[in-house]
């Protein structure tokens, strides 16, 4: 595709220039996002009560598998979604950060429960991070203490909408 000089002068980006010529460059990305949004393989990190609800979400009554998100991976290399389900202690923070960095992009973070969202009751503690978003970018917050499995699903489905929009 040879771009006209007139196109390059007005300072628009390559994508915009291509769109001027009726070439849509986002289609493939849309397909990828379609598949990514339907296949979050979670990596779990938690302390005690939120993970119980998270485990319950895999059980028969709630069944996270309906959305195809049931593939809980133990290795960050194969996960797409870090579910932070518990407070991050200062001692644990570098570890969580490292685990997050070991995940292959595109990757997302879900803060489950109030401890992960903001530190919760421990927010003024000397050893707790006041919220997971002080450590890395959190894509969705699921408040609750602990949130119901359905609340987790709501968070996942909201995240699905976000990923489908390509807004990450």
């Amino acid at each position: 595709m040879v771009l006209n000089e007139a196109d390059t002068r007005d300072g628009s980006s390559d994508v915009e220039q291509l769109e001027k010529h009726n070439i849509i460059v986002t289609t493939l990305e849309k397909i990828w996002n379609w598949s990514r949004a339907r296949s979050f393989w979670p990596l779990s990190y938690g302390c005690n009560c939120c993970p119980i609800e998270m485990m319950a979400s895999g059980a028969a009554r709630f069944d996270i598998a309906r959305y195809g998100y049931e593939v809980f991976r133990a290795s960050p290399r194969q996960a797409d979604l870090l579910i932070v389900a518990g407070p991050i202690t200062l001692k644990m923070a570098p570890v969580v950060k490292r685990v997050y960095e070991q995940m292959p992009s595109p990757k997302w973070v879900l803060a489950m429960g109030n401890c992960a969202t903001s530190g919760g009751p421990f927010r003024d503690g000397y050893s707790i991070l006041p919220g997971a978003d002080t450590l890395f970018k959190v894509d969705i917050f699921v408040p609750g203490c602990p949130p119901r499995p359905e609340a987790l699903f709501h968070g996942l489905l909201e995240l699905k909408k976000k990923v489908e929009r390509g807004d990450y």
Partner: protein
Amino acid sequence: MIGKGLLKGLGITLKHGVEKPKTIQYPEQRPYLQERFRGCLEFDYKNCIVCGMCTKACPNNVLSFETAPIEGSKKKRLVSYTIDLQYCMFCNLCVEACPTNTLFFVHDFELSTYRRDEIKKVYIPPALTQVDAGGGQAELIPQDALEPDREAEAEAKRLKQLQAMKTALSKGGQKVLAKYVDTEEDAAVLANLLQADEKKRDKMAALIVDDKEKARKVAQAFVAKERKTQAGGEEK
């Protein structure tokens, strides 16, 4: 016998495999929630007496409010009330402490947000107005309590008009219809048509009440169609 336990296990999984799944499919089917389930903390400013018991009871500093003094009164009025749900641990202490049931839990658990600061909920009560409470005493009440419900009133008025128009049309109502068609003749045709067809009558009545312009167009279309069918009938 060796392996009996294994076979038994296989039998159990087979039995459960053919049973009906126990899943409640969440977004379509709502989960059954107990009455006392604490989903989300809500605040109703109408009952609030600004006593501050809730903030004293809260262990996590979830609740906070701003007040302003009322002139000529010892009381304070509420300027804003904040529930920062991201710190809440749903312990119910504030609800128990509240003397007027201003705070309460609702069953809404779908609280996920993309941004952390969106979790915080701020309630701002409407501005207050001074009214004469009788006996020379002034009282402050919220504005929307003073103002009658405009929307509801308008809706009631509209319904009344609609009913009147329907009865008028069912009895003929050539005069009304004459405004929407060009000639008296057309009005007569339309009136006959509408008397015969209840559906079209209702539609016409609603249009006359809500949107006069559209009513004119629809009326003319009705007439034209009626003329055409009449002409077709004569030819045959």
